[in-house]
């Protein structure tokens, strides 16, 4: 027990004092969180910059509340008919979003497809105003109405989607690198030999490494969730605490990935590169950086074969999608199976010595 604690503490001190590993385990993923959470989280889109050619009767004649809504989304400047072509050229160059003119009963909108999201918004919103005006002109109450309800919690935002994935990536990275670097570093400096010549059983050494990595993972989780909640308005749902056992299972799985890299590679750099080579593409394929919902089917299949995908999915479910605690169980099982298989392979390939 004394030996266990001493080795775990030695590993933790070694980690905390290594600026590079702290950076890659905590600061680097947090930078992504700040990027996605802080900057892209800004959902209020800027108003559509618009020039209207002369008077646009349809817009001007909107009822008061509709006109206000229109002014919120469109920033209109009126120009003379003579300037029409110049204005359209501006749109083409991207200096302007929209040129509106009314040709009899037809509202003509000149816009660019370069920004597809904005283009769709412009078309949709204008269509809605035209439809609304048509209904109003007939003087009848509309028969049908639409009530839009997102299946997620009303307040679900960008930060809620990205936090679980980025956390998964951070945990995968530090567990895999930690294990790979320790194994190879200790082998190169002969510390592994030296420990082998002490009465400490191998299981205790491995256990100390596992516990140290889990503690690091818990700190990562705490920082991510804490910062996300406090600074970026992350909304944790009911059974978010299930992310703790999930993170434990993920750590075990990626320790095994690192162990495998460490066992295969000859040098410390080789092991770290190998871990990187495994984890980074996996992070992309597992939706750590962007959701894979619109990815082609074959990519989805590959994605499902990645342990990180299951870690990310499980965390999304319990942390922000509001699923019950049971939603984490299957991902946890999958992660443990991966951990067991990879550890078994690593153990087969493991050598005490560099040669």
């Amino acid at each position: 027990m004394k030996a266990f604690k001493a080795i775990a503490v030695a590993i933790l001190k070694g980690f905390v004092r290594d600026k590079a590993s702290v950076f890659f385990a905590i600061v680097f993923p947090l930078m992504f969180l700040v990027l996605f959470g802080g900057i892209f989280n800004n959902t209020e889109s800027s108003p559509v910059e618009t020039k209207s050619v002369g008077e646009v009767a349809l817009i001007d004649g909107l009822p008061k509340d509709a006109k206000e809504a229109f002014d919120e989304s469109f920033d209109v400047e009126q120009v003379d008919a003579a300037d029409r072509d110049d204005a359209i050229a501006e749109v083409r160059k991207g200096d302007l979003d929209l040129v509106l003119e009314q040709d009899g009963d037809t509202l003509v909108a000149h816009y660019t497809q370069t920004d597809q999201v904005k283009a769709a918004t412009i078309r949709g919103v204008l269509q809605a105003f035209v439809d609304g005006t048509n209904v109003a002109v007939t003087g009848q109450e509309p028969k049908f109405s639409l009530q839009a309800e997102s299946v997620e919690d009303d307040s679900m935002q960008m930060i809620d989607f990205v936090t679980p994935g980025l956390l998964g990536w951070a945990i995968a990275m530090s567990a895999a690198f930690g294990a790979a670097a320790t194994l190879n570093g200790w082998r190169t400096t002969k510390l592994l030999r030296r420990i082998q010549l002490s009465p400490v059983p191998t299981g205790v050494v491995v256990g100390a490494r596992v516990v140290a990595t889990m503690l690091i993972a818990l700190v990562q989780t705490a920082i991510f969730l804490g910062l996300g909640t406090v600074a970026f308005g992350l909304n944790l749902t009911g059974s978010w605490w299930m992310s703790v056992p999930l993170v434990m299972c993920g750590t075990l799985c990626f320790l095994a990935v690192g162990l495998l890299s460490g066992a295969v590679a000859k040098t410390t750099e080789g092991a770290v590169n190998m871990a990187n080579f495994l984890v980074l593409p996996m992070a992309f394929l597992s939706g750590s950086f962007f959701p894979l919902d619109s990815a082609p089917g074959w990519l989805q299949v590959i994605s499902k074969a990645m342990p990180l995908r299951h870690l990310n999915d499980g965390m999304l479910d319990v942390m922000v999608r509001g699923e019950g605690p049971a939603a984490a169980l299957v991902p946890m099982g999958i992660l443990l199976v991966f951990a067991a298989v990879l550890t078994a392979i690593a153990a087969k390939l493991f050598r005490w010595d560099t040669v």
Partner: protein
Amino acid sequence: MGAVDVAELVMAYGDFRAVDGISFEVGEGEFFGILGPNGAGKTTTLELIEGLRKPASGSVRLLGEVPWPRNSGLLPRIGVQLQASAFFERLDAREQIHTFASMYGVSTARGDEWLERVGLTEKAGVAAEKLSGGQAQRLAIACALVHDPEVVFLDEPTAALDPQARRNLWDLLSGLNDDGRTVILTTHYMDEAEVLCDRVAIMDHGKILKLGSPAELIRGLDAPVRITIADAQLSVAEAGRIAGVDDASEEAAGLVLTTRRPADVLTALAGGDQLDGLQVKAATLEDVFLDVTGREYRA
């Protein structure tokens, strides 16, 4: 029963026999040296005795037990300093020895005592990576001894140290077997083996060439003693006539007399008051090595 008993030990890397049929015993409390040039097989021999490697043939007994495969009953009784300083990354000297103390289940206070004994108390807060070569060796030795082992293995503890640091370390090393501990040390340095070891095995190409106490080995060599005195006290011819002088010659350092009866020759020189600039150089282990291998010893 000795502390170590090695018989007909062979160990090969592929076809290459790094240890090629060696046999020796080390008694309890003995300071035993394995001396030889690079690649002689010293480290491999230690690793075989420690139980890190499997012998191809032959047998090893350490404290009466078989060390390979990993014999966990034996491990608390031995201490090891490896050729490369094996430390935990980014821990300072005190944290290193405390970690090792805990690994052996002894109190960290013992770690502090050993730090003091090897003269590193002042450097206790310095990261192991930042210690000088000699300080790192001292720390590694302290870590090997923190649990007070019965047998301690030191693989080139003075490698890469300057002569001054080497001699400082000798003071520490020579006391290690005072309380009955067995010490097995490898070295490149003849003078080191002569000073520290009760017995030495001279090793080359995986074989033991000579085994015995340094004095015994040198005596067995029957090499002449070289006596040098300042010029102009004596002519070469006069020197040649002194009883016991085998050969006399003028060299850059002065007049050199070779003899197998140094006591008689020195008495004669003293009688003639001809001892100015006296230097006496007896045979050393270096000469033993030259004698058995036919080549100059280069570490």
